[in-house]
């Protein structure tokens, strides 16, 4: 709950839900938890609008409420940060399960929570006329069920009423994979959606996606460090891990080498992996950034996946890059040196980093200023001379450094979002005009009007306008891409925080 987090949360709310929700969100962020009356008082907004904003926030799971004598609302800032991760979820779905799964998840993300019948029928109706997609309700239903089985979607919490009170309490329920009848779905498609009796609500399970992202990150790291076969082996080990231990365990329970060997042999088109499984295991163990560890020798060797250690290693790599890009390679050298020596005195930094005295000091202080390294003073007992000498030991506290990096990311995310909204506001008229021209032209093309008329409409955007608008669009695109990159860094850091300290 930092200042930077508040700023970025406010920007995201403003971008997605408009100024009024942003104001309400700001108010909730500042004061922790509040009742409607208090929000009305401090924001000065009409009560109806506050109610509408709260509905929006609650619907998208961006706020929670606590039932007491009065209902108090609380902002869920972590979930608000996830709003910028939505495209990544969809990309994951599209690349892993194909476009049908993507459509289902997209619809579910838009609706926030929805019954299976309504969800499937809406998707079906939306793309009914699209011949390319060639949707089929049976396939769609099967995709839905496989997504539910894999845990990408889960049942939404159910409201329970305490006796005597009207205020519901949301209780999470275990997901039961539904048994959907195709005939019912067909019937629902033709009849009115409002009167279907399905009342099990579903929502997207973000955590399942995050596991996927984490695994991808680990596999990619190994692939880059060693080669693709090693990456494949890492994937197999992670699969094995999910069978025997909890997903966010610090270390997996040991897997026997012979099991892994069997699994590796079943993978097709990896002849090198087949031939050298043992070598790859050895290389992974010795040179795989300590992602895995040999836990015992029984059964030809037992291996453990060290997920927490992996998260730390990835975070360290991120910090190294941050330092390199912000302060230069010399600062990165100092940073690495301090980390490798654990505790080091300033003079020793100068000696070991082999940098001129003054430059070294300057860079060290800059690192200290950015909170990437910390200093620990050690006082010696006062000697007879009277001058109490203290030694200052520099070291890297990974937890604090991760917080500093997170702050940097949040600040950057806020700036990006701010700049893009400013750009959008500055070119609002032109962007609007371009959109209108595009929709008109599209309509004309569909109707098959002559090219002459279409050109006439296109020419309403003059060349200078066109260049201005394309420049603005390019900038907005770059800013969006930057936001997505920042989200990747934020995800990596949150992975580190997911494990107990």
């Amino acid at each position, binding site marked *: 709950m930092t200042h930077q987090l508040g700023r970025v949360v406010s920007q995201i709310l403003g971008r997605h839900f408009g100024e009024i929700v942003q104001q309400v969100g700001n108010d909730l962020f500042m004061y922790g938890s509040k009742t409607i009356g208090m929000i009305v008082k401090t924001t000065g907004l009409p009560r109806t609008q506050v109610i509408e904003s709260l509905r929006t926030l*609650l619907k998208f799971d961006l706020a929670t409420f606590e039932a007491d004598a009065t209902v108090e609302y609380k902002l869920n800032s972590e979930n608000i940060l996830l709003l910028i991760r939505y495209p990544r979820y969809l990309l994951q779905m599209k690349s892993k399960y194909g476009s049908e799964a993507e459509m289902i998840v997209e619809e579910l993300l838009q609706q926030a929570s929805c019954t299976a019948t309504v969800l499937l029928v809406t998707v079906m109706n939306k793309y009914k006329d699209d011949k390319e997609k060639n949707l089929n309700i049976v396939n769609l239903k099967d995709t839905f069920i496989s997504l539910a089985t894999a845990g990408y979607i889960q049942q939404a919490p159910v*409201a329970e009423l305490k006796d005597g009170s009207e205020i519901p309490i949301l209780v999470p329920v275990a997901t039961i994979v539904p048994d959907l009848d195709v005939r019912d779905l067909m019937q629902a498609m033709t009849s009115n959606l409002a009167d279907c009796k399905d009342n099990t*609500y579903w929502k997207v399970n973000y955590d399942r996606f995050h596991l996927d992202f984490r695994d991808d990150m680990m596999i990619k790291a190994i692939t880059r460090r060693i080669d693709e076969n090693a990456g494949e082996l890492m994937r197999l080990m992670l699969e094995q891990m999910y069978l025997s231990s909890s997903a966010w365990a610090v270390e997996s329970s040991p897997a026997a080498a012979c099991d892994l060997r069997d699994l590796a042999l079943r993978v097709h088109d990896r002849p090198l992996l087949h031939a050298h499984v043992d070598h790859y295991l050895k290389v992974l163990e010795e040179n795989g950034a300590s992602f895995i560890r040999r836990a015992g020798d029984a059964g030809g060797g037992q291996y453990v996946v060290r997920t927490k250690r992996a998260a730390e290693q990835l975070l360290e790599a991120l910090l190294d890059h941050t330092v390199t890009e912000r302060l230069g390679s010399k600062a990165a050298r100092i940073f690495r040196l301090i980390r490798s020596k654990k505790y080091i005195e300033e003079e020793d930094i100068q000696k070991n980093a082999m940098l001129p005295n003054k430059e070294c000091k300057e860079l060290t202080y800059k690192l200290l200023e950015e909170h990437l390294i910390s200093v620990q003073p050690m006082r010696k007992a006062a000697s007879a001379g009277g*001058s109490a000498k203290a030694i200052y030991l520099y070291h890297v506290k990974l937890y604090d450094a991760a917080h500093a990096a997170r702050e940097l990311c949040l600040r950057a995310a806020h700036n990006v979002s701010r700049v893009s909204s400013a750009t959008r506001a500055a070119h609002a008229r032109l962007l609007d005009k371009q959109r209108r021209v595009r929709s008109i032209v599209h309509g004309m093309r569909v109707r098959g009007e002559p090219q002459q008329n279409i050109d006439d409409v296109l020419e309403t955007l003059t060349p200078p306008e066109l260049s201005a608008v394309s420049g603005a669009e390019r900038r907005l695109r770059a800013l969006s*891409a930057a936001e997505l990159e920042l989200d990747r860094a934020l995800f990596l850091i949150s992975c580190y925080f997911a494990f107990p300290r």
Partner: protein
Amino acid sequence: MAGRGRGNGKSLTHEQLQALGITRADNAPQILAPPPLFPKLEVKPLPLNCDAATDYMVIVKDQFIEYLHESPAYVKANTRTDGIERYSDKYKLLALDAKKGKVLDCVWANMPPELRPHGGRARTTTRKRKLDDPIEIAKRLQTLEKKESQEDTAMETNENEEEVKKEDEDNEELLDEQEQEEEIDDGTDYANNYFDNGEDYEDEDDALDDGPVY
């Protein structure tokens, strides 16, 4: 021995400062101007990688945001007009009306009652309280009777007409009182948003019939 120990106003002694590398000669000249609002970038940032995946994500993101802006989840302020009639007003109002009626589609059972539509406090009981009171009713009838007698002497009119008029007055008074009550109730202009006597709507309709406003 005075300079020893903690406190004494100074955090670091001269020797300690020297050990940290801060000496008198090194001190930069004092800068009095505030730092620039947008400091120059010291290092150029890395170029963003542009692959198909990023393009896809950017497009999906824009679509999602556009969807939200169209949906009732996007809360809009009540538009204020500057009193100038414009040709485009008609279309803007039409677009607004299309969105206005929509309420966010939520699972109402999961919401606190105060957020549900038409939920919350029972307003009607407080509104009619004054009329339920028998003393109040008697008072009101008395005043109305007085008025009647006064008006009777003042001008001669048909009795039927008079009755109609009276009823109208009564209704108006009632309405006024209700409005006031509501305002006191809330302390906000909540009630004002809902209050629409339908006159504006009629005007708008007429304008449409007459043809466009030039």
